[in-house]
C-alpha cells in the first residue's frame, strides 16, 4: 500500500491568471506550535471546493487567514488578486463570510438586518455585479419569507443558519467562505441549500470554499475536495480521483439461484470476470461499488497520521 504524502496535482493545473484563490506554502505558528506546515492549493472562478479534515487539522486557521481575520506566519496568499493581510474595504466587499457560530443582532428583524447590511455594499456595485442583492429576493432564495418580520433572536437553529448564509451572500460575493453551513438543517433545508450553492456557483460564477464534516455533502457539492490533516494538504482532487488514490476494496453484490451474495475485492474487474466465467447467465442484479468518499477519507487521514507517527518515532530514535 502506498502512503500519500504532500499535495497532489490535480488533472489540469489552473493557469495563474484564472486563480481566484492562490495559496502557496502557507505556514502558521502559534508560539512554538506549528499549526500549518506549508499548505498549497488554488481555485478557479466558479469552482466549489470542500475543505475536509479532522478537528484541529487547521481548517479554521486556514480559512481565517484567507478571510483576512488572521495574520499568517509565512507563505504567499492571494485572494481575489490581493493579499488578505493588507487588502482594503473594496476587497472586503467582494467576499462573503459564513462562520460557524453567530448569535449576533438578536433584537433585529430579519428583513431589517438584511436590508441594513446590504446598504454597506451599495458603494461597490458594478454594472456586471449589481450590489446588494435585492432584499426580498434574497429572503426568498434562502427560504425565510415567512420569517421576514421576525426577530433574529427568535429564529430556530436552522432558520438562524439560513439567515447567516443570506448575510454571507447579501453583497453578491465573488468568493464565498462557508464554515460548516448546514449544521442544524433538516433534510429538506439541506436540499434547498445545496440547490442554492449550485445556483451561486453555476449562475453567478461564485467561487465557494466550504468546510464540512458531512462527506456526502462534500461529494454532492464540491468540484474538488481538499483534505487537510496535521497542517498539510494530504489530498487534492475530485471524489473519484481521490478514491483512485486509495487502494480500497470495492464491494460486489449479485444474486444467483435466488440467493444474495456480497463480496469485497481489491480488484473488482478481475473478480467479476471470474464470476461470469464460472456462472455465466446465472448471475443477476450485479452491483459494483467503489470505496465511498468516507472510506477514502478515513484511509487517507489514517495513513497521514501513521506517517507522522512513524516520522516522529524516527526523529526520536535519531535523537537517542
Amino acid at each position, binding site marked *: 500500500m502506498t502512503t500519500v504524502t504532500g499535495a497532489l496535482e490535480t488533472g489540469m493545473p489552473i493557469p495563474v491568471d484564472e486563480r481566484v484563490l492562490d495559496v502557496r506554502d502557507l505556514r502558521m505558528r502559534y508560539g512554538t506550535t506549528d499549526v500549518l506546515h506549508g499548505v498549497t492549493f488554488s481555485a478557479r472562478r466558479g469552482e466549489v471546493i470542500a475543505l475536509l479534515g479532522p478537528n484541529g487539522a487547521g481548517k479554521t486557521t486556514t480559512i481565517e487567514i484567507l478571510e483576512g481575520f488572521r495574520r499568517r506566519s509565512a507563505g504567499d496568499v492571494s485572494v481575489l488578486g490581493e493579499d488578505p493581510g493588507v487588502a482594503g474595504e473594496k476587497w472586503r466587499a467582494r467576499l462573503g463570510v459564513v462562520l460557524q457560530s453567530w448569535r449576533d443582532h438578536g433584537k433585529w428583524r430579519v428583513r431589517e438586518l438584511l436590508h*441594513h447590511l446590504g446598504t454597506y455594499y451599495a458603494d461597490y456595485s458594478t454594472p456586471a455585479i449589481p450590489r446588494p442583492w435585492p432584499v426580498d429576493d434574497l429572503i426568498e432564495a434562502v427560504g425565510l419569507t415567512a420569517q421576514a418580520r421576525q426577530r433574529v433572536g427568535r429564529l430556530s437553529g436552522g432558520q438562524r443558519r439560513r439567515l447567516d448564509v443570506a448575510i454571507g451572500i447579501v453583497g453578491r460575493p465573488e468568493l464565498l467562505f462557508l464554515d460548516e453551513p448546514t449544521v442544524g438543517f433538516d433534510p429538506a433545508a439541506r436540499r434547498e441549500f445545496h440547490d442554492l450553492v449550485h445556483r451561486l456557483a453555476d449562475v453567478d460564477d461564485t467561487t465557494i470554499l466550504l468546510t464540512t464534516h458531512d462527506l456526502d455533502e462534500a461529494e454532492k457539492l464540491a468540484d474538488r475536495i481538499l483534505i487537510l490533516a496535521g497542517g498539510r494538504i494530504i489530498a487534492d482532487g475530485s471524489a473519484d480521483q481521490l478514491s483512485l488514490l486509495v487502494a480500497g476494496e470495492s464491494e460486489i453484490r449479485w444474486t444467483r439461484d435466488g440467493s444474495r451474495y456480497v463480496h469485497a475485492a481489491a480488484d473488482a474487474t478481475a473478480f467479476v470476470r471470474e464470476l461470469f466465467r464460472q456462472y455465466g447467465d446465472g448471475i443477476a442484479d450485479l452491483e459494483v461499488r467503489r470505496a465511498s468518499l468516507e472510506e477514502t477519507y478515513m484511509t487517507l487521514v489514517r495513513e497521514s497520521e501513521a506517517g507522522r507517527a512513524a516520522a516522529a518515532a524516527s526523529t526520536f530514535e535519531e535523537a537517542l
Partner: protein
Amino acid sequence: MSSISTAARTGFARGGYEFRHTLTTPADLWQYIFPTIALYATVFFMRGATVPGTDIALGARTLPSAFGMGIAFTGLMTVAMLLVTDREDGTLLRAKATPNGMSGYLVGKIVLVGGMTAISFLLQLLPGLFLIDGLHVDAVGWFTLLWLVPLGFVATMPIGAVLGSLFDGPRNIGLLMLPLVGLVAISGIFYPIMSLPGWVQGVAQVFPIYWLGLGMRSVFLPDALTAAELGHSWRHLETVGMLGLWAVAGLVVAPMILRRMARRESGSAVAARREKAMQRIS
C-alpha cells in the same frame, strides 16, 4: 471622502435601528425607567433635610448631581457593556466582515448611546422640574447644558470603549461597578464633597463624575449654593479643563485600543468565548 459619508450614512441608520430596538424591548425599557425610580425614591427619603448651612432641600441638590452621574455612567458602563456583549455574540465580527462595517458600527454606537443618554436624562429631568422645589434653569443654564452634556459624553464614552475592549466577558465587566460606585460615593453626588477629608476630595477631582455633577448643579441650583462647593464657585473653567483632558486622552487612546481589539477578532475567538460562557452556565 466617500468612506466617511458611507460611515455616517450606515452608522446613523444602524444607530437609529438599535435605538428603536431599545424602545421596544421590555428589558431595555426597564433600564431606562429603573434609575429614574431609584433616584426619586432616594430624593423622597431625603425630604426634610437641607444642604448644611443653607435652607435648600438636600433632594434638590442631589437630583442635578445625579443627572451628572447618569451621563458618566451611560458613557462608561453602557458603552463598555455594549462593546463586551457585541464582541461575545459576534456582532463586532460581523461588522468586521462587512465593508466599512467597523466605522458604521462605531458611528452607530455613538448614535445609540447618545439617544439612550438623552432619553434617560429627559426621564430623570422632567419629573424633577415639576415635583422638586428649588430647581430652575435660566438662559445661562441652558447654555451650560449645551456644552456640558456633549463634553461629558465625549469625556466618558471613549474611556468606556477602552474598558469594554480590555475586559473579556460580561461577568468581568461587573467588576467595574465596584470602583465606580466608590467613586460616586466620594464625588459629592449624594452628599456635599466639602464634608470629606482633603485627600479624598483630591482623588474625586481627578475623575469626570465629580465635574459632571458640579456642572449640573451649576445649571439647576441658585448661585448662593456655591457656598457648599469647593472654592465657593461653580468652577466652569476647571470643569471644561478636566472634562476636556479626559476627552482628549480618551480620543487618543480609544482608537488604538479599539483597533487592537478589532484586529484580534475572529471566528475562533468568538467561538472560544462562547465555549467559556457555556462552561460558566453548566
